[in-house]
């Protein structure tokens, strides 16, 4: 009997360590093709060339346009998601009564569960036509619609996680501030918010990581033209959208086009990895502070 249980225990131990192999697998696959890529293209070209045209006759491999496209759409998304998300979180945690909070929270989760391809539909076929009336020069595929819809998509994540952080702040801090004659406004913004800052920052960084890695919205609505611009009315291509564009075509294994998507994946992985790690440690330090 003891022997049997040993086997069970070692099996689930193996399952747990499998997650390490997943990470190693990701890094391995990306690294393998990335190394092959850099045998053909110099790192200098990759970083400093201002054109990204691996699918054309005249091939250039400058990641800058894709990077800027990702940066632009993410910046637009965060400029929506952070203010909206934080205000909603403060409202849920400090102003709403328990019943309203209990109704709105599952609703937020429901919104977070809407597939991203649906948001892509909104961006291209609902939001862009509205913007066309406001800015006649806007192109059909543009960074603005994609970014804004992506922002709304990320609101539930930022709001829900920030709400958790605000809620974890001990009641005694609020009571102390009230006893000194503070208003709810002062307690929310000057006591609770600063106390929960690392938790809230962790939520925002996770939102940023989501925006950078988001694929379908930008692939559908932002366009497939690598464009070195920060004009939100123009069409841009993000790192993720490029991977989708190549995947839809029939790219032979071993060709330089095939390798480029893994290089893009590597850049994406490294950027989001830094954000995720930062978010993780901020959350840990926050949880330690309030003894969770």
């Amino acid at each position, binding site marked *: 009997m003891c022997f049997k249980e040993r086997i069970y225990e070692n099996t689930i131990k193996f399952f747990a360590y499998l997650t390490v192999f997943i990470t190693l697998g990701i890094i391995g696959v990306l690294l393998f093709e990335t190394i092959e890529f850099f045998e053909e293209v110099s790192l200098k070209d990759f970083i400093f060339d201002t054109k990204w045209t691996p699918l054309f006759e005249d091939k250039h491999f400058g990641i800058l346009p894709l990077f800027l496209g990702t940066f632009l759409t993410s910046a637009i998304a965060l400029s929506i998601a952070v203010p909206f998300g934080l205000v909603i979180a403060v409202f849920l945690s400090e*102003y709403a009564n328990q019943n309203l909070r209990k109704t709105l929270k599952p609703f937020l989760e429901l919104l977070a569960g809407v597939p*991203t391809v*649906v948001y892509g539909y909104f961006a291209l076929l609902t939001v862009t036509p509205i913007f066309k009336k406001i800015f006649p020069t806007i192109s059909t595929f543009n960074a603005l619609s994609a970014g804004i819809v992506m922002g709304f998509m990320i609101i539930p994540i930022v709001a829900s996680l920030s709400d958790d952080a605000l809620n974890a702040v001990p009641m005694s801090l609020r009571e102390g501030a009230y006893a000194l004659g503070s208003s709810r406004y002062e307690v929310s913004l000057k006591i609770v918010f600063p106390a929960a800052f690392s938790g809230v920052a962790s939520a925002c960084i996770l939102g940023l990581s989501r925006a950078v890695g988001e694929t379908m919205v930008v692939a*559908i609505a932002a366009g497939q033209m690598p464009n070195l611009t920060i004009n939100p009315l123009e069409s841009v291509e993000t790192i993720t959208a490029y991977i*989708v564009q190549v995947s839809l075509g029939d790219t032979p294994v071993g060709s330089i086009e095939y390798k480029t998507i893994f290089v893009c994946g590597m850049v994406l992985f490294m950027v989001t990895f830094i954000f995720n790690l930062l978010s993780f440690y901020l959350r840990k330090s926050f949880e330690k502070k309030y003894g969770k």
Partner: protein
Amino acid sequence: MANKKVLKDKILLIFALFFVILSFSILLLLVIDIFIKGFSHISISFLFSYPSRIPQKAGILSSWVGTLWLMFGTALLSIPLGIGAGIYLEEYARKNFFSNLLEVNISNLAAVPSIIFGLLGLGLFARTFGLGRSILTGVLTLSILILPMIIMTTRESLRAVPFSIREASYALGATKWKTTIDQVLPVAFPNILTGIILGLSRAIGETAPLITIGALTYIAFLPTGPIKGDFPFITFKGFMDPFTTLPIQIFNWVSRPQRAFQEKAAAAIIILLLLVFFLNGIAIYLRIKYQRRLKE
């Protein structure tokens, strides 16, 4: 002075309410817009036709069957793996450098963009293992995508089980494994199930990783059925067939310039949203029911 404070408080409240109502109503409007555009296109023939070049004839048969296959396989693979790993990490692993590493690793994996999992699926499963653009490649890719989520909910659910249950079981002479499986896991299970359903509902909507592994956008046949005439009457050959899914079909239709296809996309989105909301509804219901039971 006091008035100014009250005023500021009111302003913040109104401001917050405005933001809450605005963001919810915008999202509600978008959903209503889709229902108006797509509802008239939902019919029996829409559900049971293959995709087509002619918008009037196009349907979603191959895509919802593909989604079903994929979900079945993903559930089969990710649930035992996720629960097992969760049990190990929460009940067995000692707190040391390795368990810390595993925790950071899983938390990072949960936030890795889904398209990266697609690249892993393409490089490892489709090419190195030679599984190609099959359902199996899709199942493996989606399984490792939702694995971190299932592990994390399993751990949280196990942590919430009162320690007295374990002690009582040990006192009666049960081994650690027996205690975990027969006493702790059943108590935690409703919460774990909630997490699993949410994970699967996320997997249903995933598009990017499946496009990356090379799932086709145009499929006019179904995978080999699981039941066959001769012994052993069941076959898993279907897992090696190419596939498409609802989100991929939606992506394909949205990207076309013809208005008729875009309306088909809206109709397919309604079906997809119904599926996702149905699953989320079950998860929310389970959680509320379970929370009540714990309180009593």
